């Protein structure tokens, strides 16, 4: 059998998180959506399908077949949509009869025998699913199909709990100071062999498990509430890591963080509040950067998505910050704000607008195009500090994203130029 994890055409509902990654690479809990799906049958080979723009970077990152029609023949297949949030692999038996798989009325995959797959002669999972839909019986799965980016935050606490159970690791194995404490069950904490929990740290497991992964270091005066996940090589430099936080690998995090996902390789070193947020890679949040995740009138939060404001139906929604974006000291981010890829956000004395398009500098309440090549150099410097490199494929993807996002940026930049001219008396 072979596992095929595919991205469907709803990836735009997860922008800006998915400009540089596939939907199935998004983190929810300790692991990504694809990593959870692989638990269905970890011993099977896996191949991936996603939009063409991502193919080269995915091959580099995943070291697997990507967008290769040959992976759709030669073996029995289990196709799974990468936005299926699979919290319990037992709900999804790997072996079984040929059938299409549905979740909440959405077709999320199929189990297809080799002969059926080869007869379909499909080039993509979508073509294969179209060929077997209505032909094979359909099984309804219990689970969640993610439709919008804020749902990652909503499901994150449960995903952390599920990932803790699936990992099957508990107990303090690594360094744990005599002056640190677990408040609650010690069975609900895992400190990996190379992790270090320093004095005056409190890990509160009364509401869920906490994992401190390999090489993570928790500095004094940190409180971590479960459910929580601290990724490999990450440093928590003091503060409150409230319930429902997933902090990926090699981050530097301090201050107050609540029900948020920091994908990895990002810094929020200083004080300031981050709540109900998803922060991508290589982001730096300047000191006292703070986001709102609740409106004063407790109304539901709207998020700018694909050119329009969409009501999330949720009263607790923070911000979504794309890769390589930096905020200055004292940046105040509005409720439900979307900040794109490679932005430079400067505090302007008020809250940010709800939408800052990718590759934009936000300065004095105006938006300007960034100097792309200069910003690439900044990205290279930031990545080299963590011993990572920006590959040619990464640059090509960034260039593609720059082009893709130009229309949404142009009008805002034009308006800002006119505002600048008026304010400075240049338009007389």
């Amino acid at each position: 059998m072979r596992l095929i994890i595919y991205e469907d055409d709803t990836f735009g509902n997860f922008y800006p998180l998915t400009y540089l990654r596939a939907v199935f690479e998004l983190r929810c809990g300790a692991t990504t959506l694809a990593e959870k799906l692989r638990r269905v049958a970890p011993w099977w080979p896996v191949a991936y399908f996603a939009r063409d723009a991502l193919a080269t970077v995915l091959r580099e990152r995943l070291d697997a077949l990507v967008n290769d029609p040959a992976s759709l023949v030669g073996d029995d297949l289990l196709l799974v949509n990468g936005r299926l949030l699979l919290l319990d692999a037992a709900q999804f038996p790997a072996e079984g009869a040929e059938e299409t798989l549905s979740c909440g009325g959405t077709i999320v995959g199929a189990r297809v025998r080799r002969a059926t797959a080869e007869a379909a002669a499909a080039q993509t999972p979508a073509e294969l699913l179209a060929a077997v839909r209505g032909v094979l019986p359909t099984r309804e799965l219990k689970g969640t199909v993610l439709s919008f980016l804020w749902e990652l935050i909503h499901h994150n606490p449960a995903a952390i709990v599920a990932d803790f159970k699936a990992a099957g690791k508990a107990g303090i194995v690594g360094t744990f100071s005599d002056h640190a404490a677990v408040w609650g069950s010690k069975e609900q904490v895992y400190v990996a062999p190379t992790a270090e929990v320093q004095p005056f740290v409190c890990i509160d497991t009364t509401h869920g498990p906490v994992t401190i992964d390999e090489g993570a270091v928790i500095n004094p005066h940190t409180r971590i509430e479960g459910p929580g996940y601290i990724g490999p090589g990450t440093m928590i430099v003091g503060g409150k890591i409230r319930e429902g936080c997933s902090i990926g690998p090699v981050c530097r995090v301090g201050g107050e963080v609540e029900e948020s996902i920091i994908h990895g390789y990002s810094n929020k070193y200083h004080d300031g509040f981050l709540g109900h947020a998803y922060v991508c890679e290589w982001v730096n949040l300047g000191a006292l950067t703070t986001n709102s995740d609740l409106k004063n009138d407790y109304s539901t939060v709207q998020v700018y998505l694909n050119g329009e404001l969409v009501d999330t139906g949720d009263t607790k929604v923070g911000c979504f910050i794309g890769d390589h974006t930096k905020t200055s000291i004292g940046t105040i981010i509005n409720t439900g704000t979307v900040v794109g890829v490679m932005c430079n956000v400067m505090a302007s004395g008020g809250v940010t607008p709800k939408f800052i398009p990718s590759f934009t500098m936000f300065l004095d309440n105006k938006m300007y195009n960034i100097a792309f090549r200069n910003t690439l150099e900044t990205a290279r410097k930031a990545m080299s500090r963590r011993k990572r490199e920006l590959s040619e494929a990464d640059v090509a993807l960034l260039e593609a994203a720059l082009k893709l996002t130009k229309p949404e940026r142009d009008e805002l930049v034009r308006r800002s130029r006119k505002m600048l001219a008026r304010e400075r008396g240049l338009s007389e």
Partner: protein
Amino acid sequence: MSDVAERVRKVTARLLKVDAADVKPESHFVRDLGAESIQSIELVAAFEEEFDIEMDQDEALAVQTVGDAVRFIEKVIAQQRA
């Protein structure tokens, strides 16, 4: 002084709040006119608005003197109106 040079001088003086007489072709935006990095971004945007052009930000921010700005803008105008 060309029309472009006169308009660059006017925009620079107003945006950086310096005397127009101090804005000379050899004036260095940072060293002589006190432009900070943030003001450089604003200057590029102001020139784009003044001349209704779109400049490559990397190239525009590499310009250091008023005279070089005039030549750069003239080149961009010629390219974009060709």
